[in-house]
C-alpha cells in the first residue's frame, strides 16, 4: 500500500514537473521521494520514452545506492527522466583508463581523478561539455573548479574530493604520529600500513622530503623510491581497501589512506584517530566526465546535472563520507559531517595540499619499475636467488637431454 501511495505521489510530482516546465517557475522543485527533490527549472523529461540507455562507470561504493536505507540515486534518476542507466564500477583510475583506451566498452559518464582527467584530455579521450546543460555547475565552490588540469572546466565537473593522511589506533601507540616522517620511525616498526599504489606511496615520500609529488625527472623518482626502500623493513603490508579490516580490527597501529574512507573507519572503531601530517597532504578531486566515444552526450550531461543537485549531493556525501565541492550541498549536510575536521579541514591543511598531475610515459614507466623493484626488494639474497634459479634450470635441461640421449642409445640396440 505504501509503495503504491509512493508511486502515486511520484507520478503526481512528475506530472507537476511536466506541467510546470513551460512556466519555468524559479525555485520550484520536483519531489522525488521523502528526502530528495530536484529543481523544476530543468527539462528532465526530454529524453523520456526515447529508449536511451546511459552507461555510467563509477568507483565502487561511490554513490548513494539504496543500501542502509539511503536513497537509491540512480533509480531516482531513471524514474525522473525515463532514461535507463547501466551502472558499473571500477576500482582504480588505471583500470577505468585501460578499459576505455582499449575501446572494448563504451561509456557515457565516467568518474576519473584529476591526474587521469589530464591524461585523458591529452589523449583526446574526453568530450567537451556543454555547461549550459549543467546549470547546477554554478553551485560548485570556485576552489574546486577551473583547475590547472582542465581550465574552464571544459571536460569535467568535480564530484567529490578528499585528501590523504594518517589514521592511527590511539590504544596502540604511545606517541601519536603528526608527520609523514613519523612513518619512518622505528617506534611503529611492523605496525605500519602503506598504500599499495605507486603514485600515492610516492607522494608520501615526496611530502616527507619536501619535493613535488609530481616528479619531472627519473632522478626524483629514484630518490623518493630510495626513501621508501629505507622504510620497507618497518612496513607491515602494502594495502588498499584491505586497510578497513586491518585498522578496524587492530591489526596495525598506523596506516595511510584517504580522508573520505577515514570517516567510515573512525565511525566503526572509535579508537581510531586521524591526523593531517604537517608536511602537507595530497588533495585529490574526482570528476564526472563524458568519454569522446559517448553517443548520448546530452543525456549524460543531464545525469551530471542531476548528480550536482543539492539533495542528491547530500545523499551521496552522507552515504560515502567524501567531501563535496559544492557549497550548497555542504550547507545542507548533517552537522556531524558538515563540521567534521577530517572531511573539511581548515586552511592550514588546504594551503599546503598538492594535486597530482599527469606524468610523462617515461616517468610513469620509471615509477612502475622502481616501485615493483622496491616491493620485491629484500635486504640481501635476491641476486643469489636468480643465480640459483638459472643453475637449476640448466641442470634440469641438461638432465633432460641426457635422458633423451640415453633413450636413443638404448633404442639403437
Amino acid at each position, binding site marked *: 500500500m505504501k509503495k503504491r501511495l509512493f508511486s502515486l505521489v511520484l507520478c503526481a510530482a512528475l506530472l507537476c514537473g511536466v506541467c510546470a516546465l513551460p512556466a519555468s517557475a524559479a525555485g520550484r522543485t520536483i519531489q522525488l521521494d521523502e528526502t530528495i527533490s530536484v529543481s523544476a527549472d530543468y527539462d528532465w523529461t526530454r529524453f523520456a520514452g526515447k529508449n536511451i540507455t546511459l552507461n555510467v562507470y563509477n568507483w565502487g561504493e561511490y554513490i548513494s545506492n539504496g543500501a542502509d536505507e539511503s536513497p537509491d540515486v540512480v533509480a531516482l534518476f531513471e524514474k525522473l527522466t525515463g532514461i535507463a542507466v547501466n551502472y558499473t564500477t571500477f576500482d582504480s583510475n588505471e583500470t577505468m583508463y585501460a578499459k576505455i583506451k582499449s575501446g572494448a566498452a563504451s561509456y557515457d559518464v565516467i568518474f576519473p581523478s584529476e591526474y587521469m582527467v589530464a591524461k585523458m584530455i591529452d589523449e583526446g579521450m574526453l568530450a567537451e561539455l556543454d555547461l549550459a546543460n549543467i546549470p547546477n555547475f554554478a553551485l560548485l565552490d570556485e576552489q574546486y573548479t577551473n583547475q590547472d588540469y582542465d581550465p574552464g572546466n571544459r571536460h569535467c565537473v568535480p564530484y567529490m574530493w578528499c585528501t590523504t593522511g594518517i589514521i592511527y589506533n590511539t590504544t596502540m601507540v604511545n606517541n601519536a604520529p603528526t608527520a609523514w616522517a613519523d612513518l619512518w620511525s622505528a617506534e611503529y616498526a611492523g605496525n605500519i600500513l602503506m598504500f599499495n599504489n605507486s603514485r600515492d606511496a610516492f607522494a608520501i615520500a615526496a611530502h616527507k622530503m619536501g619535493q613535488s609529488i609530481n616528479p619531472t625527472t627519473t632522478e626524483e623518482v629514484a630518490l623518493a623510491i630510495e626513501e621508501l626502500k629505507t622504510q620497507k623493513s618497518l612496513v607491515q603490508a602494502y594495502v588498499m581497501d584491505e586497510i578497513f579490516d586491518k585498522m578496524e580490527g587492530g591489526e596495525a597501529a598506523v596506516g595511510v589512506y584517504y580522508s573520505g574512507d577515514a570517516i567510515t573507519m573512525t565511525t566503526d572503531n572509535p579508537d581510531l584517530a586521524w591526523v593531517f601530517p604537517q608536511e602537507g597532504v595530497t588533495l585529490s578531486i574526482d570528476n564526472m566526465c563524458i568519454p569522446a566515444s559517448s553517443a548520448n552526450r546530452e543525456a549524460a550531461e543531464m545525469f551530471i546535472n542531476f548528480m550536482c543537485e543539492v539533495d542528491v549531493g547530500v545523499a551521496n556525501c552522507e552515504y560515502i563520507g567524501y567531501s563535496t565541492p559544492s557549497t550548497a550541498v555542504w550547507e545542507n549536510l548533517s552537522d556531524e559531517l558538515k563540521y567534521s575536521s577530517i572531511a573539511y579541514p581548515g586552511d592550514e591543511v588546504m594551503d599546503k595540499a598538492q594535486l597530482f598531475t599527469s606524468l610523462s610515459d617515461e616517468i610513469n614507466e620509471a615509477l*612502475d619499475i622502481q616501485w615493483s623493484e622496491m616491493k620485491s626488494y629484500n635486504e640481501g639474497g635476491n641476486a643469489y636467488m636468480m643465480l640459483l634459479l638459472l643453475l637449476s634450470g640448466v641442470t634440469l635441461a641438461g638432465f633432460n637431454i641426457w635422458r633423451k640421449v640415453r633413450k636413443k642409445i638404448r633404442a639403437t640396440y
Partner: protein
Amino acid sequence: MTLNNKKLAAPYLVWMVLFTIVPLAIVVYYAFTDDAGNFTLDNLARAGGYSSVFARSLMLALVATVICLVLAFPVGYFLSRLRVNKQRIMQMLIMMPMWMNFLLRTYAWMGLLSVNGPINTILGFFGIGPFTMLNTSGAVVLGMVYNYIPYMILPLYTSMTKIDASIVEAAEDLGANLFQTLVRVLIPMSVPGICTGITMVFVPAVSTFAISRMLGGGSNLLIGDLIEMQFLGNSYNLNVGSAMSLVLMVIVLLCMSFTSSFDEEEMEGAV
C-alpha cells in the same frame, strides 16, 4: 553421421581458434612490437629488468608444488585403496573447499593468520607467540598449497586406482620393505598422475596474483602482479605486459615438456 565424424569437433575447433589461437597470436605480436607497430626486442629486455620477481615467482611456485606433491601422494594412495562408495565421499570432501570462491578462501586465511587472528589467540593461551605469519612469503606458499592441492590429489588418485593391489602385495612378498615398495613400485606406476599434478599445480601457482596480494602484504610481488600492473597499472604498457606473458608462457611450456617427457618414457616402460 557416425560418432567418429570429424565434423563433430568443428564447433570446438572454431572456439579454440577464436579464443585461444588468435589471442595467443595477438600476445606474440604485441610482445615483439612497439607503440608504432615496428619490430623490437626492447620489450623483452625491459621485462628482464624484473628478473628478481620472475625468480621469486618460480621459487615460490616450485616450493608450493613440492609441498603439494609430498602431502598429496599419501592421500591419493589412501583414497585409491578405499571401498568405492567411500572413495566417492572422500573425493567430494576434497572438492568441497572448491565450491567456495577462490578469493573468499584466500580472504579467510588473511583473517586466520593475522596477529590478532584465531591461530595466534590459541597459541597465546599456551604462552607462545604472537607470530608474524601474514605478509610473508611463507603465507603466500601456504595460500598456493591450500588452493591448489586438490589439483594434485585428484590426478594422483586417478592414476593410483589403476595400480592393482596384488602388485603391491607381490612386492611385499618378494621382500621389499616400505621404502623399496614406494620407490620401485608405487612412484614409477603413478608417474602419469604425478606429471599431471605437477603441471596443474605449478602453472596456476606461478601465475597467480591474488594470493600474493592478499597474503603477501603487497611486498611479495609475483609475475602475475607484474603483468597486472602493466595492463591495469600506472604505466599501462601493453607491449611490455605481453612480453612478460610470453616469458611466462615459455617457462610454463618448458615445465610441461619436461614433465611430459617423463610421462612418455614411463608409458613405454609399462607396455
